[in-house]
């Protein structure tokens, strides 16, 4: 038997990213948001009055939480055929909530 090499998708090449699907993007964005949140929370604790950091914190929390809700809905039995629509819905809802909170006059 020929024991040839096993090819893997190479994430450092353009070819490796071709054909990346919505479910994969949802997973990557949620994990990316989690990692980014660690840094943004640290910056926010250092100085809570920086507007840019506040905006980043809100955006990342919304992104991470809403994509988490998407994963929960699938875990609890919503058909996987909805997973693309759920990604779109989570992003749209995130933008809407961000816009509503950010444009609200708090003071």
């Amino acid at each position: 038997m020929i024991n040839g090499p096993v090819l893997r998708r190479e994430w450092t090449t353009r070819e490796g990213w071709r054909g990346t699907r919505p479910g994969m993007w949802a997973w990557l964005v949620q994990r990316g948001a989690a990692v980014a949140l660690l840094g943004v929370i640290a910056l926010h604790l250092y100085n809570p009055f920086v507007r840019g950091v506040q905006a980043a914190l809100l955006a990342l929390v919304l992104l991470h939480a809403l994509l988490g809700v998407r994963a929960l809905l699938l875990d609890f039995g919503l058909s996987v055929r909805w997973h693309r629509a759920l990604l779109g819905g989570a992003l749209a809802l995130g933008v809407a909530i961000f816009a509503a909170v950010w444009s609200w006059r708090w003071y």
Partner: protein
Amino acid sequence: MELALVLSVFRWAPGSPERVQSYEVAPREGFTVLDALVEIQRRVDPTLAFRYACRVGMCGSCAMVVDGRERWACRTLLGTPRAAVTVRPLYHFPLIRDLVVDMTPFAARLRAAGAAFVPREGPLEFARVPGDGAERQAIDAAVECIGCGMCVSACTMVAHDARFPGPAALNRAFALQADSRDAGRAARAALIASEDALLRCHTQANCTEVCPMEISPTQSILALRRRAVGDLFRGPSRAP
């Protein structure tokens, strides 16, 4: 004059390095990737190796990665030439030559998940499973798997965990767990409820996206996972 279409084809043979070789073919109406590969092999390069059988999208033998996505070569039309079309073998399988991969690990993954029917002991009796019954309907899509290996190629978790049985094996396990004739359900439930099986799936649904039979292994895995959680509270039960 019709523009030539460029196919960038992955090449490898024992004793030679991996490389990409470009071929020019003249596309015709209804020209598929498989048609192009056959034409290249017959007229340009007889050393090019690839696998196919039915040519009509039934057997799954011609599964390969075309433009970064797992597809059946015989069902992938080559449209208007734009950039070169990349053709690579399936990921996560050992290469035999060029676009031909060794499917042995596919069977090994099925065995690892206990994804084989276990007959009951004692006298054989006819099983009464009506086609429109709940037991049959629950697995209606899952039993259509033809073992082409595209889901295993698309799954990122297969690359990260050698012990992960992968989407096809867990989809088969799902069908068997719903089969009242099967005597191996308790053992299989314990086998797949491990960190390296059901818990390893991250619900990326890459397998679902590429399955040419429109099966959702993700759906099967999530159903098995819900059943495993249920078993923790109420003890093992009969069907997913």
